[in-house]
């Protein structure tokens, strides 16, 4: 029973991080109708910046509380990168065919991947100090890292915050209006360019936050972005591109299937995830929560 609880917690932990990455990807697609292949790299930026700053602070003898406060640094860095990328590189592509949008973000993927390599070198970066400082809690006969519980909480909190932001604020109304009909919103006086840059920045912030909270538990390594992107794809395809509820449900499905897969069918765990995505696309092309458009 306790073992099952541990498995459920692990699945939730995984889902929380996946939701942050996939939610950002989905938000960006929902508003701008582009698939950002470099989205996983923004997650990696979050992880690297957080790991690096916590590592530097810990080496400089900073008090423990400061280390915890440094966690969001990665998210802010990813958001800043996003705020620069959208107007400079992506904006020229909105009116061009998807091939080019995919290609320019694929180029971006290669560039960011190597920039991380260039700045932080080939060795993994870790912020394990925070993980240790958080200690552990006792579940029955098991000891479970308290930090993991915090990640789950952050995942749930950010989902709630995002929901409130999009469905309960004026900005959210404008964002949804732009997403539904960009021309009409523009005709009604919405500054679409500004909405785009804000939506893209929020999407990148979420990916960066995902990277920032994951890095105390596991190291920041090269290639983590590419790997995360594919899983985020699976999540948004299951949930429906452009839908936050979908990203939430999709992240839970992928999290639990993956946890079950690691325990029960490790060889085909990844294949099963991709197959679930393919089957969902076949049965419900718009995903479980999609709006039924292509």
């Amino acid at each position: 029973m306790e073992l099952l609880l541990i498995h459920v917690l692990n699945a939730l932990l995984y889902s929380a991080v996946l939701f942050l990455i996939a939610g950002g990807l989905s938000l960006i697609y929902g508003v701008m109708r582009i698939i950002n292949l470099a989205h996983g790299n923004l997650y990696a930026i979050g992880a690297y910046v957080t790991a690096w700053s916590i590592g530097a602070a810990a080496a400089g003898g900073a008090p423990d509380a400061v280390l915890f406060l440094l966690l969001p640094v990665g998210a802010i860095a990813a958001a800043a990168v996003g705020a620069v990328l959208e107007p400079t590189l992506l904006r020229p592509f909105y009116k061009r065919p998807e091939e080019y949008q995919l290609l320019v973000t694929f180029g971006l993927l290669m560039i960011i991947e190597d920039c991380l390599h260039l700045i932080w070198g080939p060795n993994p970066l870790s912020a394990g100090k925070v993980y240790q400082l958080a200690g552990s809690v006792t579940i029955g006969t098991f000891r479970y890292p308290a930090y993991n519980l915090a990640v789950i909480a952050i995942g749930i909190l950010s989902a709630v915050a995002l929901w409130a932001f999009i469905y309960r604020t004026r900005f959210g109304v404008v964002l949804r209006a732009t997403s539904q009909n960009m021309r009409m919103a523009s005709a009604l006086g919405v500054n679409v360019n500004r909405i785009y840059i804000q939506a893209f920045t929020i999407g990148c912030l979420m990916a960066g936050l995902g990277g920032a909270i994951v890095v105390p538990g596991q190291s920041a390594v090269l290639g983590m972005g590419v790997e995360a992107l594919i899983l985020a794809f699976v999540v948004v395809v299951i949930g429906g591109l452009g839908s936050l509820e979908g990203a939430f449900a999709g992240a839970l499905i992928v999290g639990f299937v993956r946890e079950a897969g690691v325990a029960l069918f490790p060889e085909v765990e990844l294949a099963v995830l991709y197959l679930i995505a393919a089957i969902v696309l076949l049965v419900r092309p718009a995903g479980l929560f999609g709006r039924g458009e292509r």
Partner: protein
Amino acid sequence: MAAPALKILAWAVPLGLALLIAPHVVGPFQTLTLLYGLIFGIAVLGFNLLLGYTGLLSFGHSAYFGAGAYTVALMVKYFKIASMELFLAGSVLMSAVIAIVFGFVCVRYTRIFFGILTLALSQVLWSLAFKFFWVTGGTDGLRIPTPSLLGMSPGTDKMEFLAFRYYYYVLAVFVLCAIVMWVIVHSPFGKALQAIRDNETRAEFVGIRIRRYRLIAFVISGVFAGLAGALWAPLNGLATPDVLVWTFSGEIVFMAVLGGFHNFIGPIVGAVAFTYLKTYAVGLTVYWQLALGTVLVVLVLALPKGIMGLAEIVAARLRRPR
């Protein structure tokens, strides 16, 4: 049809002669790089039947290329086969079967969903190759010895074999593939694909069975990639999951765009150019991805029609009377 055929011959003959004498003029390193380029050329030629002629962007062509390469590796491992012709036949069969299954699912969609679906399905193959290491060797991959060509044993000098006999073998297959593809895109079937690309609704009204045509194009495209994978395997000597992973599909797209996918020979030019670009970038710096990524971004920003598009612009400038 005669006029474009003559025009094509005007540059195809000198180019063919250059390719024929290349191994005797340049060193083995250059020949092998060119060999890689020609092999990728076959794959991208197939890929472009979908992108350039049918208007479908596949982000999963690594699946068929990798299926071709792994078919060769598994034929060596389990059946001790060494004949290149059997390898080619096996790979064509295998990639056709996979393309039929995947294509059946994928051609229901277009645009972004088609891309994601092809990507997701190709990742299924990748994860299987990655996880079933007792069959596929996992990340270590499977070794592929030099095969026999047309029943002749490869001899002991591997470099000599690859740079001469294997080169001409691949060149022959390449020319055959290019001719077959040229016939396909200029056939009524090819015209129908272009009609689908330009206007799906009208094409349907004219009586074209869109989904069936797309599936056939998908399978042909996959078979070309599988054939290229089979030719690539003995040259590389090792089949690893790297040729199945989705970023390799991205490189295939890159090659098509680099050469220009609105043009028949664009993909071939792109494949050869990309191979040289990557070989030299990897040789020069560990940050080759940064270099290639920058090239890609600049390319789509400034030269969306690729090298052939640029060539057309230059040719038009030269032809224009001053």
